[in-house]
Every structure is written in C-alpha cells, then in structure tokens.
C-alpha cells in the first residue's frame, strides 16, 4: 500500500508540474466566475416564496436551482471527461519511456503496485478538479437560491467513476502501444462516437432493417462502456430523480475491472 500511495502522489505531482491541474483549475474558475456573473445579474426575489402540498415544500426558486444543476451536470460530465482524458493520456506512455521505467522497476516495487499507483494518481487528479468545480457551483447556487441540493454533489463520484473506466482503457492502450495519442484517440472514439451510437442502436437497427447490424451493435453495446447512459443517470441524480438504469453502472464497472485486469497481466509479463 505504501508504494501505491507513493506512486499516486508522484503522479499527482507530475500533473501539477505539467500544469495540468492549474489549467483544469483555471477553466473551472472561469466557469465559476461566469455563473457568479449570471447569478448576480438577476434578482431572485420574485421566486422567493414557498408553498406546500402533501407535506412537501415547493418553491419556484428551488425548482430553478434544481433545473440549473441538472442542466450543468451534463456539460460538467462531458467537459471534465474530455479534459481529463486529454490530460491523463501521457501518464502511462511517459512511465514506459526507456530510462524511466527501468528506474521504477529496479526498485522493490511490484509491477501491479506501480500500475495501480499511476491509476489512482490519475483518478485523484480528476477527482480534485471535478470536486473543485462541482462544489463551487453547488455553493454558488446554494447561496443564490438558498437551496442545498446534495444530490448534485454525486456528480463528483459519478464523473470520477466514468473517468476511471475510460482511464483503464487508456492504460491498456498505453501499455500495448506506448502511444499517448493512440490511447487518447481510442478513448475519445468510445466516448464520443461508439457510446452515443450504441445508445441509439435500436433506432439505427430499425431504420436500416439489417439483422447483422442489429446483432453487431447489440454485441458492441454489451462489451463497451455505456458512458452516454452513465451521463444520463448523472443528470437524473443531479435533478434528484431516482436511478432508472443500474445496468449502465454495472456494465461500466465490469468493463473497467476487466480492462484494468488485462492491463496488469500484460504489464506483468512485459520486457522493458
């Protein structure tokens, strides 16, 4: 555990020094300032009343805050994943560079500890960035509308979870190809192209009428991470709606574990 902790901290330090965290924080600060400006520009006094039905308290201000949070949870999920994939893509190829990997492997560190340290370090970096943005927005809307929606904070672990699934894929690609560009491209392909297309697989199969395509899309649907569906669930949770698709979480979890397991196996066998 000590080695995993040390390597995680080392990865975080790498992210700091490469200005990844600063850039992330800069973008998040810009978004927060934008919301602050928007919130300051209109008066919520007209929405500032409450009524109750069946023991539940309602307020137009609360509803507006909830809708805003649900709405921003979508770009937060997409935007932070986009940036996170970009910024974490170099971690593994950089580790595997000749002269660098030799140093790590010459130490009394097990190979799985090295990889897991890099994995957690990347996740920690993304978690900190997302937490800063989401908690900032939560505080701004809470102060503005007097409404404290704790469900919105679940965007932090859900987005971090989605990133960890894609990061596992980036690690595998990085180990096999040692190319940050390829790792990034493959991850973007799954996230931006495959996942949204597969979410619409039934409509596509219906339009084309091809049973081969239907079977192929179904197969892909079950073996690739359902990030688009995870994004939908994230928006629902932010809006305090119950999760209606646990399959997306389970599918992503299994995908992440299997892909990470394969990465560790290959990394353990590899010559450097």
């Amino acid at each position, binding site marked *: 555990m000590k*080695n995993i902790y040390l390597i995680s901290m080392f990865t975080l330090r*790498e992210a700091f020094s490469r200005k990844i965290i600063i850039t992330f924080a800069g973008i998040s600060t810009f978004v927060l300032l934008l919301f602050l400006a928007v919130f300051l520009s209109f008066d919520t006094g007209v929405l500032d009343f409450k009524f109750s039905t069946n023991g539940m308290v309602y307020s137009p201000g609360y509803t507006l805050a909830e809708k805003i949070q649900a709405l921003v949870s979508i770009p937060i999920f997409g935007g932070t994943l986009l940036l996170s994939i970009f910024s974490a893509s170099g971690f593994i190829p950089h580790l595997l560079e000749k002269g660098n990997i*030799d*140093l790590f492997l010459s*130490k*009394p560190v*097990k190979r799985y500890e090295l990889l897991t340290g890099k994995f957690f370090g990347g996740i920690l970096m993304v978690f900190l960035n997302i937490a800063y943005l989401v908690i900032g927005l939560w505080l701004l809307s809470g102060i503005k509308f007097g409404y404290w929606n704790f469900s919105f904070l679940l965007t932090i672990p859900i987005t971090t979870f989605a990133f960890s699934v894609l990061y596992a894929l980036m690690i595998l690609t990085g180990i096999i190809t040692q190319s940050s560009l390829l790792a990034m491209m493959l991850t973007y392909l799954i996230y931006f192209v495959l996942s949204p297309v597969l979410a619409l697989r039934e409509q596509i199969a219906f339009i084309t009428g091809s049973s081969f395509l239907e079977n192929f899309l179904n197969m892909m649907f079950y073996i690739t991470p359902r990030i688009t569906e995870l994004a939908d669930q994230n928006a629902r949770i932010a809006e305090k709606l119950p999760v209606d698709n646990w399959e997306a979480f389970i599918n992503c979890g299994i995908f992440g574990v299997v892909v990470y397991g394969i990465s560790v196996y290959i990394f353990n066998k590899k010559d450097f």
Partner: protein
Amino acid sequence: MNIIEIKNLTKVYQKRYSKKKITALNNVNLEIPKGIIFGLLGPNGAGKTTLIKILLEIAYPTSGQTKLFDSEENRTEMKKFTGYLPENHKYPAYLTGEAVLRIFGQLGGCDYKNIKARVSYVLDLVDMKKWADTKIKKYSKGMMQRLGLAQALMNDPKLIFLDEPTDGIDPIGRSEIREILKNLKSEGKTIFLNSHLLSEVEMISDRAAILNKGELVWDGAVSDLTENSKIVRISTDQNISDSVLQEIQKKYDIKKCSQNCLSIALSEIKDVNYAIDELRKNNINIISVIPEKQSLEEMFISLIKNAETEIK
C-alpha cells in the same frame, strides 16, 4: 559466497509484427563473488544491459536461472539491497535533485525518518550538494550521472549495478567516481559495472567478463587477461643491423619498434634465450628484456576478433 549466479541464461527477443528473433543472450554462465568490482565489457549490442535487466527483473529470461545474494527469495524483496544506475536514465525534469533522491529513495525502501540525512550524505558523496535545490532540467550530462549514482546509493545497497556510470563525465569527475567506487568496495559492497571504457574497467575492476553477440567469450581476473602475453621487448645499447634482424626473424615474428629496440612474439617464453644469444653473438649489449603487458583494449579487440572468426 557468490552474490550473483547466472546459469544457462538465454534471452531471445521476438520482433513485433515479425517472426524475426534476436538472441540477446545465449547460454551465459557467470558467478560473481561478493565484495568485488566486476566489469562487464562488450561491443554495443552485446547484451550487457539485457543481462542487468534480467538480474533486476526489468526483463525476463527466455530460459536459464539467475540468483542474487545466493537466495531463491522473491526478487522484488531482493531489490531492497540493490542499487541501479541505468544507461540514459530519465528523471522528471521538473524535479530538483533532492526531490528525485527523496522519491526514488522512498521507493527503494529508505526509512522516511532518515531520508533527509541520507539524501544529504549521498549528495555530498557525489559532490552535488550545492545543486540539490536546482531543477534537474538545468543539469549537465555529467551532473545527471552523478545524481544517478547518488540515486543508486540511496538505499545503502549491498550490490550496485552501474550501466556506463562515467558517461558524459570529464576526466577529473571520472577519477572521483572511481574513488567513490573503490570506497564502496572497501565497505564490502559489490559493484557490477557495465562500461565501454576499457581503461576504466582495467583500472578499478577485480574481475571482468567479455560479452560478444550475447555470448560470454571470456571471464576472469583482469590481471590474467592483460598479463597473459608472450611478447617481449628487448632494448639494446646500439643499433641492431638488418643482418642480425634477418637471423632472428627466421625463428620469431619480429615487431621492431626502433633502431635499438625490438619486440618479438614468442611461442614459449623460454625462446627469448635464442634472440638474446643472437644479439650477444654480434656483440650487441642488452639493456633490458621486458615482457610486454598487453592493454585490456588490445586483449578485448583480439578476443572479439577471435570470437567472430570462430562464428564464421
């Protein structure tokens, strides 16, 4: 006790996307006793770095066994007692020298409480204390090598692997590093040195081995390698005439070096008497008869050439 034992070690690399195989090491057998400086020599691509990598489990053998510290224990655990300076090592450029030593020291098993004192000690040892707080992107090649050596010594290892440790270091720096290595040896540490600088190996190594195209062509004491020569240099007080030379040449391969000095290659060392008799018969006085010590470089070249002729 042997600190390193290598038995029938073979490493074959399979080229990616091709069936072509490259044999980096072929049936290598080697035993290195504790407490010596061992020099591994060989031309580029001979398999020297691969051998170290296999010993440290950075790469895996295709067949054969390796043993460190005469123990079958888990190699990861054994690495607590080893230090390694890789060739062309890369440290993160954004770190300071001190930060590099702290990070890799902790990974190497250094106690967190003592790490500050250890960093200070090794920086002092390699004469890098004044650069401790400077980011390593500003370091020269020589400074990087010194830092690399300090890094390899962080966990106070019993066995130290150094791959081209003096690469990029000026002659004064090299001599300082040689002194450090001699001191480490006097502390009972074993040093495994990979170097293409033959004179350096000759100066500090107790034992050496020569690898060529993955095969061990020689292994033994450095003194055996350089003194096992049958060339004799005879100096005289007057010029040696061509007629005398022709007479001697009937029996020996003469490498005349000047008018009053000649080097002869003997099949047996006692044969030098014939040459002396010939010179004395012609009233030529002999000042000295000195067996020539072949340099490691000459021996190295000759061994490599012989090995290649055998392969052909």
